């Protein structure tokens, strides 16, 4: 695998994760529990989709086959998607969404902090920009972790259920392969073991402060690096890609 191939693959991983979690959040549009949260979630969704646009634009450029960011977003099949399994999990109830966003926000907070120092200038520039936004996302979800976890008996139980259900997808966040090895060596991507340490520490702190229990389940599901997804991604793509695939020349 060449450096360019590794970079393309890596950009898909970052870009697809943003795109898919952004699309998931956008499903809350008009359904938020209160108006302010509806607006907040959609603003955050917009940040993710914006971040995906810049990453996939760059991915298409690195690939050099004349594809655009829209081709990558709308014309690839499920198995070609490289988003993390966590990002495609359904919204569930509001607590489940908060649990998913929290686990992911802590991850991107530390990951993009490292990517700011990437030797690839474009990745570093995107990371600097995105990290400012991620800081707001993390603050938002952390507050809801406290509010729901340390709230009523029901909100506590629902958030605990969300954490328990999603926990099996967290090892997928730190899975590394040849792509990572090549990019770590080139100073382009960070070692995910380092991110994992920071992630575990922060998650543990917030979970304890929110009077919740860290899930103990040992079941692990990985596979996003090879495009092995849970059943949920196919349904999401069917909805997201329907219009551009049915009306390929549509413009708006």
């Amino acid at each position, binding site marked *: 695998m060449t450096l360019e191939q590794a970079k393309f693959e890596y950009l898909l991983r970052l870009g697809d994760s943003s795109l898919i979690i952004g699309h998931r959040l956008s499903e809350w549009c008009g359904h938020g529990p209160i108006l*302010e949260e509806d607006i*907040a979630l959609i603003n*955050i969704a917009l*940040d993710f989709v*914006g*971040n995906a646009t810049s990453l996939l634009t760059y991915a298409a450029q690195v690939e050099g086959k004349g594809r655009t960011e829209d081709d990558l977003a709308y014309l690839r099949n499920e198995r070609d998607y490289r988003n993390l399994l966590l990002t495609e999990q359904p919204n569930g109830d509001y607590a489940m969404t908060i649990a998913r966003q929290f686990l992911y926000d802590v991850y991107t907070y530390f990951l993009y902090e490292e990517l700011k120092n990437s030797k690839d200038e474009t990745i570093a*520039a995107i990371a600097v*920009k*995105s990290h400012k*936004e991620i800081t707001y996302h993390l603050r938002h979800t952390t507050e809801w972790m406290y509010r729901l976890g340390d709230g009523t008996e029901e909100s506590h139980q629902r958030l605990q259920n969300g954490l328990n259900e999603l926990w099996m997808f967290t090892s997928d966040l730190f899975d590394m392969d040849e792509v990572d090895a090549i990019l770590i060596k080139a100073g382009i991507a960070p070692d995910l073991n380092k991110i994992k340490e920071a992630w575990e520490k922060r998650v543990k702190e917030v979970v304890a402060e929110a009077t919740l229990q860290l899930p103990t389940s040992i079941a692990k599901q990985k596979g996003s690096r090879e495009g092995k997804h849970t059943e949920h991604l196919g349904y999401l793509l069917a909805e997201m890609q329907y219009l551009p695939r049915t009306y390929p020349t549509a413009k708006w």
Partner: protein
Amino acid sequence: MNSVFRNNTTMNLTQLSKEDILLALSEIPDPEIPVITIEELGILRDVKWDCITCTIVITPTYTGCPAMKVIEDDIRIKLKSLGIENIIVELVYSPAWTTDWISDTAKEKLEKYGIAPPEHSSVDKGTLLGKPRDLRCPHCSSKNVQMISQFGSTACKALYRCLDCREPFDYFKCI
């Protein structure tokens, strides 16, 4: 409306200087906050002009800012009104946009418009840790204000309410 170029679209392009172009572009209002211009907001980063092709460099406030497309269109319309046909609009992410680039005059305009202007971004680092912020209501100047949501009507704003005059207002978030 006061543009000196308004009735002068046939102007010879070689007589057009970079400063003229900058002056014309500095009239373009931000689509979401029309009281300030894209120049005052710091979105307009650079103008390159070789008497044939005009390259405009812009940077987004937020990566997903939906106004960028409108801003690009507004720039093209403005340049065409000057008679320029070869237009390149370049989007750059580095250096990352910061609220520190908003000029003091623009901050005054924001407050008059009813949006509490951003403080210096180093001030906001404290608020990320949950410390109180020195922020006043744009309607009555009271500092007795409360955050309703960190996310307001657009990506760059948070929603507050004034506990004295009871009016809600937008606060331009520091990034």
